[in-house]
């Protein structure tokens, strides 16, 4: 067990190192132009310089703020909507047509209205992210709620849990949590994509995405690449953190159920 883990780590390291070596060789010996393809060492140097200048931290903070606004709103609106649709059949019939029409509109198509409604503010970037994140949350919450085994509801009723509100709180919600969590994870991925685009299109004047566009205009492609890599790594970290949390809190009871 332990050895296998060690070997896997070795493979991960080898993969990264190989990739970096090839990148460095291609950039230096084949392309030879840092505007077309900055080398690894260029990027590392630029990263250190950017760290020193302090803008990196404020960009990260701004992006997280946009992300938090978007995801927060998506949870606040998406979960109750999904619950209503999954629990009350009439609500599903009433809400579903609207959702099905709005859902296929790419979140980025909302950017003009985001700017018209909220101006170049953090909230406007948050709004675009919200549009991207809310649908996976609604759909998964709804799916979770409409797939609750009837036996749990009936067992609850026999034990005195008979009001809709109690059934939702004590039976349906906990039973649907794995679905909701999966929806949240998808939403985070979508939100991260929307974040970059929203910031790039100038819905906000700060953030990681905004800086990519900014450095592109300054023809500083090395910095563009630094920001791209940061986006990748932070996205990965957020997802890993989430998975870690899920494994600790949810999988406790789910292990026996899913397999």
């Amino acid at each position, binding site marked *: 067990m332990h050895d296998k883990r060690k070997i896997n780590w070795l493979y991960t390291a080898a993969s990264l190192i190989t990739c970096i070596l090839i990148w460095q060789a291609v950039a230096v010996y084949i392309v030879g132009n840092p505007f077309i393809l900055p080398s690894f060492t260029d990027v590392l140097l630029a990263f250190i310089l950017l760290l020193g200048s302090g803008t990196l931290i404020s960009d990260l903070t701004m992006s997280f703020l946009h992300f938090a606004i978007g995801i927060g709103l998506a949870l606040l609106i998406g979960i109750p909507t999904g619950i209503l649709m999954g629990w009350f059949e009439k609500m599903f019939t009433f809400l579903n047509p609207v959702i099905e029409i709005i859902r296929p509109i790419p979140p980025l198509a909302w950017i003009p209205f985001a700017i018209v409604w909220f101006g170049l503010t953090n909230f406007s970037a948050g709004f675009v992210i919200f549009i991207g994140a809310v649908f996976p949350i609604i759909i998964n919450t709804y799916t979770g709620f409409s797939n609750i085994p009837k036996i749990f509801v009936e*067992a609850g*009723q026999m*034990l005195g*849990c*008979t009001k809709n509100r109690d059934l939702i709180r*004590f039976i349906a919600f906990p039973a649907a949590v794995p679905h909701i969590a999966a929806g949240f994870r998808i939403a985070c991925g979508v939100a991260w994509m929307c974040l970059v685009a929203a910031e790039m299109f100038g819905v906000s004047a700060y953030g990681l995405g905004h800086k990519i566009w900014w450095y592109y205009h300054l023809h500083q492609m090395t910095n563009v690449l630094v920001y791209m890599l940061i986006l990748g790594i932070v996205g990965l970290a957020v997802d890993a953190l989430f998975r870690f949390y899920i494994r600790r809190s949810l999988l406790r*009871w789910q292990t026996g159920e899913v397999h």
Partner: protein
Amino acid sequence: MGKVVITDVSRRFFMDDKTEFLALDSLSLTIKDDELVSLVGPSGCGKTTLLRIIAGLDHPDSGSVSLDNILITKPGPRVGMVFQEYSLFPWRNILDNVAFGLEMKKTGRKERYRQAQYYIDLVGLTSFTFCYPYELSGGMRQRVAIARALANDPDLLLMDEPFGALDAQTRNTMQEELLQIWEKQKKTIIFVTHSVDEAVYLSDRIVVLSSDPGRVSTVIDVSIPRPRDRTSPEFASIRRDVLRLLTLLDTTPGKI
């Protein structure tokens, strides 16, 4: 408390091809306070359907069921149910599963855990109190389901083939435990089983149902004093009677 009066209960189902199927045909039955009654009958004869109607989970097309002269129209904590299939809440540990009914009654945390622990001990699962259902075997889960139903202190306990999935040894132990609990707690119990042996061992009366349509075929009094000896002649004689009735019912034409 726990007198059950079933009056002319009929229940129709519509099959896929729109044909009507009479699962229960104006079935009447009275079960006395604190009585332990078994329902036996060929599979598909409507035992589960009848229990669900008594529980308030299903509704008869005509007729009614009352418990202590109050009509049963919807599920509630007066009636406890141990389902045929697995029904524990997988997201709650054993203690919180058993305490669920008390939590619904807004019993304080300390008090409900104390009572839940008592019933967990009663079904012999003390060392599993903080485990989750997936960590338990089928038999243990069923014992938790029984503890959960008992902890809610219902007047009437419905049990749908609760020991069906257990091995013979555990089954006998569970039967004895159930009798002990029943004698201590004084509840009315309606017990569905496929095992004639189990029915004779446990019941005050055995209700034999016929199928298609579901009706009461025969009611047999079991007046052997407890504890009962499965090898005694009286026991064997009643078992033989029930078996003969069941064989007769199973070969009745009209059943597929």
